[in-house]
């Protein structure tokens, strides 16, 4: 299909969001929906500006980012060695497959009551929710990358008489690297989605807290600001990671793989 020139593509891409905002404005202005439930876009924008100006939104955002950074670091520390161990030692896979499959099937939100009992209502239980949400995308992507080294590279390694360490260095790691980066990207986006659940646990700050607290206070405009913050930051984070990771793997276009 012929690619449209940039202004045309931009107009098409912006059409649905613009129509939705206009509809939202109309619904609010003509009170198709009660203004308490659906504040106008202008009111939400004004509230966002106030929250930014007062420093509340950046502070909540900063806390949420720190939580994600902490939880995701633990995810990396657990998923990296475990995926290598399972790849290298079939016995470990056999041993851990059933419990891991079970854990994968448990939604992190379902575990919140237990996490509160075990870790209390402090940061540990919030971190645990983030770890539960992000562990499997990273672990499974990396394991998939390690397990799916193309036969032609294995054959090349044999023809070049690579020993085990050379195979790991020249073939296995670099071959699995793009999958690992995709796993990180996916994992971070899962963290971001799990943030709401994590910050439901007696939080006093964070974007998830901002949303829940605003709901309790009947400030639906602030709920909207929180939701938009999550959506926009999620997109920006995802794009930034993709650009960064693409620069790390010049031999592969990760963006191309994720186009839809």
């Amino acid at each position, binding site marked *: 299909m012929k690619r449209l020139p940039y202004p045309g593509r931009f107009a098409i891409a912006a059409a649905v969001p613009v129509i939705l905002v206009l509809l939202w404005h109309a619904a609010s202005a003509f009170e198709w929906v009660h203004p308490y439930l659906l504040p106008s876009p202008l009111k939400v924008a004004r509230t966002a500006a106030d929250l930014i100006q007062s420093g509340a939104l950046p502070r909540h955002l900063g806390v949420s980012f720190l939580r994600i950074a902490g939880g995701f670091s633990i995810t990396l520390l657990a998923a990296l060695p475990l995926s290598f161990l399972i790849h290298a030692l079939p016995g470990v896979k056999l041993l851990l497959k059933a419990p891991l499959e079970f854990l994968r099937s448990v939604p992190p939100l379902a575990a919140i009551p237990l996490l509160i009992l075990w870790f209390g209502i402090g940061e540990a239980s919030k971190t645990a929710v983030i770890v539960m949400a992000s562990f499997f995308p990273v672990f499974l992507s990396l394991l998939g990358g390690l397990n799916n080294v193309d036969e*032609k590279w294995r*054959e*090349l390694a044999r*023809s*070049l008489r690579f020993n085990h360490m*050379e195979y790991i260095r*020249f073939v296995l790691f*670099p*071959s699995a690297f793009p999958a690992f980066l995709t796993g990180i990207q996916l994992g971070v986006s899962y963290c971001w989605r799990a943030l709401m659940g994590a910050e439901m646990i007696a939080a006093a700050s964070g974007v998830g807290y901002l949303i829940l607290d605003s709901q309790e206070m009947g400030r639906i405009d602030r709920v909207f600001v929180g939701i938009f913050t999550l959506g926009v930051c999620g997109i920006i984070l995802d794009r930034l990671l993709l650009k960064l990771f693409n620069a790390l793997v010049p031999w592969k276009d990760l963006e191309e793989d994720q186009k839809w």
Partner: protein
Amino acid sequence: MVSAAPVVTLKHLSKTFRQKGEPVQAVNSVTLKLNEGSFTALVGHSGCGKTTLLRLIAGLESPDEGSVDIHPAGAFPALVFQDPRLLPWLTVQKNLRAALRHRHDLAASKAERERLIDESLTLVGLESRKKAWPHELSGGMAQRAGLARALCQTSGFMLLDEPFSALDAITRERLQKEMKIIWNTTKSTTLFVTHDISEALYLSQRVLVMKDGRIAGDLHRKEWSGMASPEDYIKGIMDSPA
């Protein structure tokens, strides 16, 4: 003048695969010698067993019966695949460096290894592209880089598995000429698998014709140079009833 010392000796080499539960004999009791410094082409129809024979010599398959002896003991051939098979995460130069790791006959000095890499790239006309990534090379260039890797990997024994078959006609012709110049320069013992009879006759001193897993014909240049149409003769062997 080609030396008579054999670099490769195959004795009653056989290999059977199972295809849909049925045994298929890919290589059937092949016995032959490849002399040092010789350029031998192995021709045959698709599925006749020529690639399997090459893979057995390369050590990528284990024979069911028979033996592959490579002289000197411990030496191993450099292999050029049908596709360039350059590791995409390494530049051309680093691909060659990785292949050099087992050239134990070379002095350990880095300078000597780098010199060999430069020489090999110069031989294939890629000296200016050594910092390039494989995806930045055209098909012909990538295949040349694969050839350069084999040239610096080996101390004198190369196996090539239809290396030009995926290239367009003009690039293929150019690479055939370059291959001839390279072999005249290096005099590596070479086994070149192809299904293209004219390519085999152009490049090699000896043509082995493979049919149904066996060597059905073995011609030397001096034998076919007197023939009116060696292509037809070889084709006759390939198409003769079993």
